[in-house]
């Protein structure tokens, strides 16, 4: 199934199992979301468990916090990650801190889903990757699946989590994997092994990375769309790299990362977001702190540029396999 179907199914499984799970957001009800991730849920579970919200992201998150305080488990959609900023105060000052500031008297089990990342010619307001703006905020978990199976399993884990989870969906992967070669035809998930999504309600635990490819010479840390870019760059350069799909940025599977870098001695980090203070900076710091004596070359970041996400120059901005490949070669030479 596609990633959209997998996300829909995770909602369905969770809503069927627990009537405390409620789902809402802009265009989420009757229409089932502009990406159709909630299609059919209103019909199946009724208008008071899946409904359209007014266009007010702060209100969507703010009401969800209130609902969570009541005892429900809201799973809400922000139509694009680019539109989460009006809700930033509610997320940062409220959702993230409620358990801490009330010493557990009130908690905030909400999941905030949002389509993330570029590659769809969406310009600066339909392409952003704001993960670092959430990983810096203590009290939030941050998750980004890279395939349908993980999308379902991680969403189920996020809904089960007792605290707020930011669930970032790389929209360029909704219908099939994408490795940055934008001229190639789309391969559908239906023809991909990871499109084979297990039935049932098994969660993929938060905080566990997945080694997508074992390798001896260098470690690539990636998540979301970049996992496929990494695979492509490895294939194209022929370098025996280990490719790690982080899956969850917070909590982070530092153990897997450190074991890999200590083995390979080299590390390249790749993400779509703007470079400065991106999540790559944290990854680089953690690797430097944990593996300093194992490093044989400087760690390199391959990222989006420090500009807004452009429209026409999308492929100049997007860190594709060519740019990543260059970095891999460089780090092997260093």
């Amino acid at each position, binding site marked *: 199934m596609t990633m959209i179907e997998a996300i829909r199914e995770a909602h369905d499984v969770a809503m069927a199992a627990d009537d405390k799970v409620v789902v809402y957001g802009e265009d989420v009800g009757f229409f089932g979301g502009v990406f159709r991730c909630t299609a059919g849920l209103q019909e199946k579970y009724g208008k008071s468990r899946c409904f359209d919200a007014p266009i007010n992201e702060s209100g969507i998150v703010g009401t969800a916090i209130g609902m969570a305080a009541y005892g429900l488990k809201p799973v809400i959609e922000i139509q694009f990650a680019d539109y989460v900023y009006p809700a930033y105060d509610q997320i940062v000052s409220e959702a993230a801190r409620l358990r801490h500031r009330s010493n557990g008297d009130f908690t905030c089990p909400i999941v905030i889903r949002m389509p993330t990342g570029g590659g769809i010619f969406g310009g600066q307001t339909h392409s952003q990757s704001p993960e670092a703006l959430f990983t810096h905020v203590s009290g939030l978990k941050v998750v980004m699946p890279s395939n349908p199976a993980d999308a379902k399993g991680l969403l189920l884990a996020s809904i089960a989590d007792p605290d707020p989870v930011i669930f970032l969906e790389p929209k*360029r992967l909704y219908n099939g994997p994408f490795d940055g070669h934008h001229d190639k035809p789309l391969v559908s998930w239906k023809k991909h092994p990871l499109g084979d999504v297990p039935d049932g309600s098994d969660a993929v635990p938060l905080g566990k990375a997945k080694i997508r490819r074992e390798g001896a010479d260098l470690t690539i840390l990636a998540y979301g769309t970049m996992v496929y870019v990494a695979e492509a760059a490895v294939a194209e350069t022929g370098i025996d790299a280990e490719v790690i799909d982080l899956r969850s940025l917070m909590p982070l599977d530092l153990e897997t990362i450190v074991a890999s870098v200590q083995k390979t001695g080299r590390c390249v980090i790749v993400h779509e977001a703007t470079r400065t203070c991106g999540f790559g900076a944290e990854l680089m710091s953690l690797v430097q702190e944990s593996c300093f004596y194992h490093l044989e070359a400087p760690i390199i970041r391959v990222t989006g540029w420090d500009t807004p996400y452009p429209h026409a120059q999308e492929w100049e901005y997007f860190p594709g396999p060519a740019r990543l490949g260059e970095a891999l070669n460089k780090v092997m030479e260093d």
Partner: protein
Amino acid sequence: MTDEIEPLSLNVPEPGCRPGDTPDFSDFEIPRAGAVPRPPVDADPDSIRDMAFSIVRVLNKEGEAVGDWAGALSTDELREGLRHMVTLRTFDARMQTAQRQGKTSFYMQHLGEEAVSCAFARALEDGDMNFPTYRQAGLLVASGYPMLTMMNQIYSNAHDPLHGRQLPIMYSSKEHGFFSISGNLGTQFVQSVGWAMASAISGDTKIATGWIGDGSTAESDFHAAMVFASTYKAPVVLNIVNNQWAISTFQGIARGGVGTFAARGHGFGIASLRVDGNDYLAVHAVAKWAAERARRGFGPTLIEHVTYRAGGHSTSDDPSAYRSRREAAAWPLGDPIERLKQHLITSGNGRRTATPRPSGDPGFGDFCAETGRGRRHPGRWRCAQPARHVRGCL
């Protein structure tokens, strides 16, 4: 008390009509054209409270211009207005097709709403500043912005003044009083108030206008705009374009339990009124009134333009998934172009078959020649390709 209390339930408003249903606008009250009087421009907002629950209309069913608000425009001006609206509609149709042909990534049309921005633009003066949404290109068309430049932007080609940085139709032209469009809803509404405050701080006589959709009035920056406009009596005209839909969401979700969007102004002591957004003369008259009010220091006005989005939200949208295909045809305020045309004919100033040719600089033919019919331009900026791989509404 508790024992006699029924369990609560959630109220989720629903539109009158979903796919398959028969559209029914019989609940929708439409005042007679000419029925709403024109108050003085310094009217106390409280004294015109009723205007937020009525609709200023000038053109009656017969196409005559009637009432206090009529008579401001000459036949030449009306003909020009018709030309602007037809131009915008034709432009939209061409660009919509261009997108379908894969020549650009994205487009948003104005179908059915052409009067709002085309008529409004003609009520402003040079140096005034609009803070538009993505559905007011009529402000540009009616103030002489070159269509060629619009198309260059849409194609993100070498002549795009924005150098391919923005999504198609996210125009910007300081010179034409058109603030850079943002993709983020609502933000421009309060910015317009700031611009107007700056004009007042500077002892200028320029005014600003803010624009927002019905759905986007729910955004918090709507409130910020109202608060600042109210407190500082900013010389601003705040426009809500109520085209009944926000993507798949009907206006009742944003409006909630109140009669009209215009009524939101009452809580701020802001003069608030509704206008027939499909009536070129009414929009223009109301815009003139509000602009003069602002310019003379009597403060802000909130205008709800009542109209209908006859097309899809954007090229990414298929409205038949969430509303009846017949709803647009059933919309009781008609088509702004047909209505103005009828008026010109009725008043003896047009021929029965008089839909004018679209204006523009250059004509469409020339444009297509110049840009190689939208094929990849060999210049520095690339033509964008449509995002075929992801379906969803931008």
